[in-house]
């Protein structure tokens, strides 16, 4: 029988649909019985959706317009 700790450890794989059938069913039956774990999984999903909406980016000090210009000039040099 799967426990809360298993849900915490496999939450990502469960959400991604990356688990073998038997493993998935084991977690599913625990989720049916355990409201805490259903809430936990829902929170993980909300965290992913929120992050996807914020879409944070890698911090960079590079001037992208300048880089684009340099690459453009390089491309012309090859013509």
């Amino acid at each position, binding site marked *: 029988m799967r426990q809360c700790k298993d849900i915490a450890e496999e939450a*990502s794989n469960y959400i991604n649909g990356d688990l073998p059938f038997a493993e998935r069913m084991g977690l599913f039956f625990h989720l049916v019985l355990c409201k805490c774990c259903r809430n936990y999984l829902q929170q993980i999903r909300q965290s992913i959706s929120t992050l996807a909406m914020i879409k944070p980016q890698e911090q960079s000090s590079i001037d992208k317009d300048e880089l684009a210009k340099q690459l453009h000039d390089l491309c012309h040099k090859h013509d």
Partner: protein
Amino acid sequence: MRKDERQLIQQLISGDQQAFTLVVSDYHNIMLSVARAIAGNVFADDVVQDAWISAIKALPKFEGRSSLKTWLLHIVSNGAKTRIRRESRSISLDDGWESVAADKFDQRGHRYDDVYTWDIATPDALLANEQLQAIIEAAFQQLPAMQRAALTMYDLEGIKMNDICNILDISSSNARVLLHRARTTIHHCIEQYQDNH
């Protein structure tokens, strides 16, 4: 290859300045994320610049077997791997990770405390809170580079797990662990905020 992507590549080859601005704007940050994950902060900027130059030179030969984004990420990944080989460095997969807090569970693996639905529950409501948004952003920036790259590629850019494994040169199980750790950290920072407000 998608029609709009084919058109974009044609514009790049023919030297359309706007096309260059667009691809740099869209792909530079994720390329930097991959470079930092593989080669570390010190070499990342150099690696990405070299990757851009290689990519621009190789563009006429791009056959479109993958998306332009995935192709660029493979170029930056190869450059980063070459760079760390040259510098004889390696980046740890496990830096900065705290395992699932063992004190949350009893010996049989049951939770000690109940988990409730969040008061601020929808992504829209979460986003409307500027303080929380800043906390999430900060937590993202503080993730170890490997976790940040896996999270960015899978959850933010929709890149397939197989491609992520190839780009970061890690096994499928390692990629899944990195993604899970990153998501857990982001969840934890939102959870702490909800508990304190």
